[in-house]
């Protein structure tokens, strides 16, 4: 059937919709509410999982990391590389790179006068580190690290465990590459509180030169370069390029390589949205089947006449399913129109879930969630909801086309 014919039928279908205005409005409003809820829920959910990942990446991991070959598999203190500053400059010169921070990393023990605990000691160049991660902005007490001096930043939770306050001294101990134990006294200059409770319990930051001295490393040594990009999506491209450019003794990893579970978790959360679509879709489809079936049953004689004057089964089927499809499309359009201002507001101001912030902190999410609209959300709503509406018309349309013209005409 020609497109012209379809538009002609669509016009008839459209008018048929409004024969029972109230019924159509009820079905339509259920579609509108469904789309409204889906769009907001999907964008918020996506915003949350992206934020969760982004928080983890901006907290410590960065978008790309460079180590000595084999460090990722076995992060031992002796697996450092040299000429860290030259390498940092080389990487920083890449166009998509926003900042690069060198780090010395070692697992060790932190002791106060009252208690002790295992920590990940991170030797950082304070200036560079503050450009790559936002640890400097997470302080709840004290100040950020200065470039030199025996200073340490620890999490609020760790401070509580060690029963230390600002200005108190702690002793750090860690194994050196030469097999000795290195140790040094640090003064607590700042306390941080991040979205991740785990991070706050286990991370301790010290100036990188102090870390090298304590571990007996050469002054140009580092275990890691953490790289922040303008756009996280450039990570793979940069990895490929750096791998080619850098010597084989170095390994280049993207965040996917470093925290694959986190990436999987994000993808899983996104996938779980389809379950939500399914639930909404099932709820909608029964309303649609019911309404369309009523609309069909009360018009059986009319369908008989249409069949009598020569309308084919295919076209009659099309007519009925178009009615439902039109409700689906119209409802989706209205649902979108209503959800967009709300989305825009939330995208600007965020949705404050302070009530749940303890629970969210455990997931590494901030308490304010910003929805995120992607093409996938647009596609999902515009494809799935009208499709559901159309599916809901299949059985009613099947009933319509199985009308016998003779029977129907006898009934009128």
């Amino acid at each position, binding site marked *: *059937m*020609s497109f*012209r*014919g379809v538009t*002609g*039928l669509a016009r*008839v279908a459209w*008018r*048929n919709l*409004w*024969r029972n205005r109230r019924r159509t409005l009820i079905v339509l409003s259920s579609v509108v509410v469904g789309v409204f809820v889906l769009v907001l829920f999907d964008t918020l959910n996506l915003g949350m999982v992206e934020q969760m990942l982004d928080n983890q990446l901006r907290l410590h991991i960065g978008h790309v990391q460079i180590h000595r070959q084999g460090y990722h598999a076995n992060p031992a203190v002796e697996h450092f590389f040299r000429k860290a500053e030259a390498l940092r400059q080389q990487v920083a010169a890449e166009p998509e790179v926003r900042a690069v921070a060198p780090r010395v990393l070692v697992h060790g023990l932190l002791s106060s006068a009252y208690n002790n605990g295992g920590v990940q000691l991170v030797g950082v160049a304070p200036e560079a580190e503050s450009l790559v991660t936002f640890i400097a902005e997470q302080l709840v007490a004290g100040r950020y690290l200065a470039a030199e001096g025996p200073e340490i930043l620890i999490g609020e939770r760790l401070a509580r465990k060690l029963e230390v306050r600002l200005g108190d001294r702690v002793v750090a101990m860690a194994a050196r590459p030469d097999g000795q134990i290195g140790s040094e006294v640090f003064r607590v200059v700042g306390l941080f509180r991040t979205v991740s409770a785990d991070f706050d319990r286990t991370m301790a930051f010290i100036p990188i030169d102090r870390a090298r001295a304590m571990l007996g490393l050469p002054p140009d040594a580092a275990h890691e370069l953490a790289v922040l990009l303008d756009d996280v999506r450039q990570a793979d491209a940069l990895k490929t390029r750096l791998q080619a450019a850098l010597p084989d003794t170095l390994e280049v990893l993207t965040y996917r390589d470093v925290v694959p579970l986190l990436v999987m978790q994000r993808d899983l959360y996104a996938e779980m949205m389809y379950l939500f679509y399914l639930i909404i879709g099932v709820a909608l489809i029964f309303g649609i089947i019911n309404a369309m079936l009523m609309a069909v049953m009360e018009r059986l*004689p*009319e369908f008989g*006449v*249409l*069949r*009598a*004057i*020569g*309308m*084919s*089964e295919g*076209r009659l089927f099309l007519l009925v399913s178009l009615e439902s499809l039109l409700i689906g499309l119209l409802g989706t359009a209205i649902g979108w129109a209503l959800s967009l201002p709300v989305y825009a507001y939330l995208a600007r101001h965020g949705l404050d879930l302070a009530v749940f912030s303890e629970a969210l902190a455990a997931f590494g999410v901030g308490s304010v969630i910003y929805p995120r609209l992607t093409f996938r959300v647009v596609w999902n709503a515009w494809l799935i909801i009208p499709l559901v509406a159309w599916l809901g018309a299949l059985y009613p349309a099947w009933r319509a086309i199985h009308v016998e*013209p*003779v029977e129907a*005409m*006898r009934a*009128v």
Partner: protein
Amino acid sequence: MNPNAIVRAEQVTKIYDEGAVPVQALRGVSLTIEPGEFTVIAGPSGSGKTTLLNLLGALDVPTEGRVFFEGQDLSTLSRRERARLRLYKIGFVFQAYNLIPVLTALENVEFVLLLQGVPERERRRRALEVLEQLGIGELAHKRPHEMSGGQQQRVAVARAVVSHPRLVLADEPTANLDSATGARLLDLMEQLNRTQGVTFVFSSHDPQVIERGRRLLRLHDGRIEREERR
């Protein structure tokens, strides 16, 4: 046997087997409809008029016997093919008018052409032309509920003839109309028959329809009891 025959029924029998007792609506009816006829199938209720009309109109298939439309055996056609035959070759006028309520008079007439795939501009032109011819051009933009029964039935006639079918079947077309309105409707159909050679077959027990038929078939208990030509 006339090779020009539009439709020919051969010893058709129709048994409705739906209730507890099978009902034999037709018992071996044979007839031929030729171009230009203005034929009335008359008979009391239950005599089988509508059943016969449905068989001639490819709406139903006989239990026994065969119906040929333009020489083609209807029993060999699929539902789809029969729908197509009705669309292109047969016009229907029903007792209850049966216009599509959401469409205007013009759109109702156009609808058949829409189904035939006629381009919009042409179908509009042809539909308007037919409405004008039938003297109901002023009804073009009215919906069925805004029209009287007589007006609706005229639109139904326009719908039946707009695509120049070989045969127009009218099942009790005047049954819901008062006699003056019914008479005007019959005038209209007679005029179409005379000036354009449209072939009409009516089923009716309305005396004024029976009076106008140039050929009259009296049906009784599923058999043709008597046939008159005038």
